[in-house]
């Protein structure tokens, strides 16, 4: 018995990927083992290709750092005359190969840039002074280093709407809180180890909180409930407490984007 059974190889050269069994209802395409923007682009391209050219029974594709997992209804996959193969993974592998065909619709994979207004420090970022002290910086330097960087969304996970961001300046890396907070407010911007991110929901959390955004990162009432998606670019923009409060009253996202 081997965990390697049911691995299929697809693509060629730099475009090579493997396909492995995740469950009866999903396979995972793996594009290497590294976090980098090249891999992100390939994950994103296949995600867009599958959504533009869906197969019978397809219901979702979940991008991650170096993988794209494809979820489907196995009964529809096995009953479809459009797909051929003895089982789902063979049918999916053949389908993925067909996406390399010149005739399939090639989607645009341009990412979106999302500006996220953040009120740093004070009651909005109770750990700003700690992050500054740990790294031998002033609070102003922390704010500047945090908002001058351009971040890339690698994946969404952990809780609805939570984006794993790449691109934080390593000078800001700070260990998590010894004792996680029981409740972190929605919109809190934090640093945990060498990562930064925004809590989309009020949850318990152990990250150092440096600020808060009035933007809603997850809205179950929207057809696109997560504000961010894999491949997007994120820029944090400092705002004052007045602007933060004003935003909550007017809710005018257009003012920032």
């Amino acid at each position: 018995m081997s965990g390697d059974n049911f691995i299929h190889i697809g693509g060629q050269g730099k475009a090579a990927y493997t396909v492995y069994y995740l469950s009866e209802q999903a396979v995972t395409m793996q594009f290497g083992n590294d976090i980098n923007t090249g891999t992100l682009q390939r994950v994103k391209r296949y995600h867009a290709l599958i959504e533009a050219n869906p197969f019978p029974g397809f219901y979702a594709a979940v991008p991650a750092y170096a993988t794209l997992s494809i979820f489907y209804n196995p009964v529809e996959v096995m009953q479809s005359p459009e797909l051929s193969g003895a089982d789902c993974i063979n049918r999916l592998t053949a389908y993925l190969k067909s996406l390399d065909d010149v005739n399939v619709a090639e989607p645009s994979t341009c990412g979106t840039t999302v500006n996220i207004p953040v009120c740093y420090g004070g009651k909005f970022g109770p750990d700003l002074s700690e992050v500054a002290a740990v790294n031998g910086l002033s609070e102003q330097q922390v704010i500047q280093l945090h908002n001058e960087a351009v971040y890339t969304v690698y994946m969404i996970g952990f809780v609805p709407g939570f984006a794993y961001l790449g691109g934080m300046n390593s000078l800001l890396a700070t260990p998590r809180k010894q004792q996680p907070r029981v409740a972190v407010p929605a919109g809190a911007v934090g640093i945990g180890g060498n990562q930064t991110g925004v809590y989309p929901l009020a949850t318990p959390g152990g990250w150092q909180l440096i600020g808060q955004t009035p933007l809603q990162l997850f809205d179950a009432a929207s057809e696109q409930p997560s504000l961010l998606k894999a491949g997007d670019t994120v820029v944090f923009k400092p705002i004052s407490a007045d602007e933060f409060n004003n935003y909550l009253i007017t809710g005018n996202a257009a003012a920032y984007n």
Partner: protein
Amino acid sequence: MRLRIIKPGLLSTVQDTGRRLYLSHGVPLSGAMDTLSARLANIALGNNEDDAVIEFTYAGALFIAETSMLIAYAGGGMALVAGDTTLPANRPVYLSAGTQVQCISRPQGCRTYLAVAGGFNVPVILGSRSTCITAGFGGLQGRALQKGDVLDSGAEITFTTRSILNSLQGSTISFTGWSVAAHLLQPADTSRVRVVPAHEFNWFDSRSVIDFLTTPYTLNVSSNRMGCNFDGATIERLIPGEMLSTAVAPGTIQVTGNGRLVLLMTDCQTTGGYPRIAQVAAVDLHLCSQLNPDDSIYFKDITAREAQKLYIELEQQLYKLAVTVKSRFY
């Protein structure tokens, strides 16, 4: 049809077969932990299989039929009792208005599904009526049921459901002589859970893999709708190192840093970073949903192809069952 919750029990939520379309937004699947029982309760009524049901966790809940109702229930851990009548599971039951129904503890199992003719009428959010506890939406106001909650059924019922209702309605509790044969869909040995080796299977040492597939694992009391934590032989790593987070699914068995098994269940996160030793066969996942703390199971390996064959066979059986219920009223 309308019911009112008098006592909610430990954790009672509205669920359907899950929210499949927003996994890439980090939205968990949610839905019934034991989808087989939820679907059986709906099939018994002639409902659509993904109609919303109430998932009760352990006994203790109490509700009242504010109008006459046509219900069915399936699952484990409790029986529904009205006065001194035990309502039989896995078949349509007619309740006259004002009937109080109590959930009475039974050994084996812990989750029971209550279906109503037409399904419970809560709003569809992101393609599902399931309660997403993490983000507080779906089901009834995004939360567990509370004392005083009122739930209505959907106005649209199928021809089959209408026919069942016509055959049972009257002034007293009544139920059909037939039931959906839930026991035929259960494996002979419910303590044996079939698994497919997962992608990181070779990361673990052979002694640990033998332990995994031969020694019992016992459910820890800390388990919930996000995951089942097991006590048992610890799993040692052969290959050290971290893996990049990737999509996981209900049924994924992760091995944590201290060598313990966590079986992800339906409220699990959409991505995870622990190495995965195995994936529970979908046809056996409902067995794990019905485990009580201190219940023990064994894992038995099968191939991915076998798991898929079992999946398709179970779907065919459920389809036939639904057709059989419908055919009684042609």
